[in-house]
């Protein structure tokens, strides 16, 4: 696309003595490659900046015709491959062509005192510089220390509500709820409360959680890590309680063999292992 006379001053690539500053039109560019290439740009200004920096063009002295034509190479390639072309790229193409026309065709000086027409190259340069500055600003922002990345904020827990939308609950509230419920029920029922060690209940829950993840558990596994007699007793009582509530089964596959715990009503899995 580059015309002989209009070649830019600092061509980047030389092949066999000929300078190339844009992809030859007949060069096959796989659509995916083009897409990937274009994905790196945030838009037409970003692409223009890339072209200018790549060819070391002085931004204050832009060869409008060449830049426009190089830009059009990409736009043409995109259209040729019927890639989805963001309208922004076409708008920019139209604007570049307009600038080029304004640059090439001198404005007739019919109106004497009219304000001097701005150099279209300067208009383009201003836009590119403004964009480049903001591009740099975005990087500065990205690099600036950020909460959660370069520093963390102290967040010590306190008893107030966790967040306006998630009410908190205190021990007193919980206890109070229980007591009120008790008082309410006392009027209608006459059951006797049986005191249960909570540690037994907790252990029951823990055993069930383990049995949710693995099909069975041997007695040894259950007691191995626990220290002390009270742990042993708590676990044993928990197992008995779970059996009583038909939540688990205890099986022994062979005489004097290891005892296995498994969830009640689960019939598969153990035979194959024994």
């Amino acid at each position, binding site marked *: 696309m580059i015309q002989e006379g209009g070649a830019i001053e600092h061509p980047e690539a030389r092949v066999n003595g000929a300078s190339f500053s844009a992809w030859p039109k007949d060069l096959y560019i796989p659509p995916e490659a083009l897409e990937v290439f274009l994905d790196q740009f945030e838009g037409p200004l970003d692409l223009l900046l890339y072209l200018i920096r790549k060819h070391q063009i002085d931004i204050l002295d832009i060869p409008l015709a060449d830049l426009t034509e190089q830009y059009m190479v990409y736009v043409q390639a995109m259209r040729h491959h019927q890639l989805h072309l963001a309208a922004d790229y076409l708008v920019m193409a139209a604007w570049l062509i307009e600038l080029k026309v304004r640059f090439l065709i001198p404005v007739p000086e019919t109106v004497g005192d009219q304000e001097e027409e701005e150099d279209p190259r300067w208009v383009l340069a201003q836009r590119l510089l403004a964009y480049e500055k903001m591009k740099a600003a975005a990087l500065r922002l990205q690099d600036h220390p950020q909460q959660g990345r370069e520093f963390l904020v102290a967040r010590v827990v306190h008893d107030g509500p*966790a967040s*306006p939308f998630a009410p908190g609950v205190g021990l007193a509230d919980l206890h109070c709820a229980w007591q*009120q419920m*008790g008082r309410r*029920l006392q009027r209608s029922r006459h*059951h006797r409360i049986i005191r249960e060690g*909570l540690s037994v209940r907790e252990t029951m829950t823990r055993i*069930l959680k383990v049995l949710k993840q693995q099909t069975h558990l041997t007695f040894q596994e259950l007691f191995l890590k626990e220290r002390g007699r009270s742990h042993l007793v708590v676990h044993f009582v928990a197992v008995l309680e779970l059996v009583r509530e038909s939540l688990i089964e205890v099986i022994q596959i062979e005489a004097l063999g290891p005892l296995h715990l498994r*969830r009640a*009503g689960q019939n598969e899995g153990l035979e194959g292992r024994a």
Partner: protein
Amino acid sequence: MNGEENVVGRYVLVLEAALLCSSQPLSISQLRRLFDPELPAPRIHQALRDLQAQWKERGVSLVQVASGWRFQSAPWVQAWLERLEREPGPRYSRAVMETLAIIAWRQPVTRGDIEEIRGVTVSSPILKTLEERGWIEAVGQRETPGRPTLFGTTRSFLDHLGLRTLCDLPALDGHTEGKEDGIPALT
């Protein structure tokens, strides 16, 4: 600046910063992993004891809860901190609180058990509220017809209450010592 050369003197400060800035309680193994090479557990324990002593008389204290260690406000500053809260915040309904209490003290329980105790139907949103809050979870199924789900409380529930284990829940015989409190035991 890096402080690696002086890490021995600094690790207490690192532990303090990690505990002050973490949104979750930190376990000993997490605290060990702060350092490379990992610090031996006894060193961590010693440092935690030192920190606990340093913070003893302050408005914030270092405590151990179910899933590890964390800093939390001391009870005596609560009166001041409450003035910061703009509004008292929503509260859970009685139904939610009672359901939670039953699950806490009677776990593992099924929805049927809760209904049995409360004497009223337990609606799905109640259990969902508590599950979404991360305070209860399904821990299994009872092998009875219909295989109902059994619920238990989670570690975050204990963390929220600042408790280490369920045994730290207040005993329920307290006010009704020797008396029945009207709540049926599960059979």
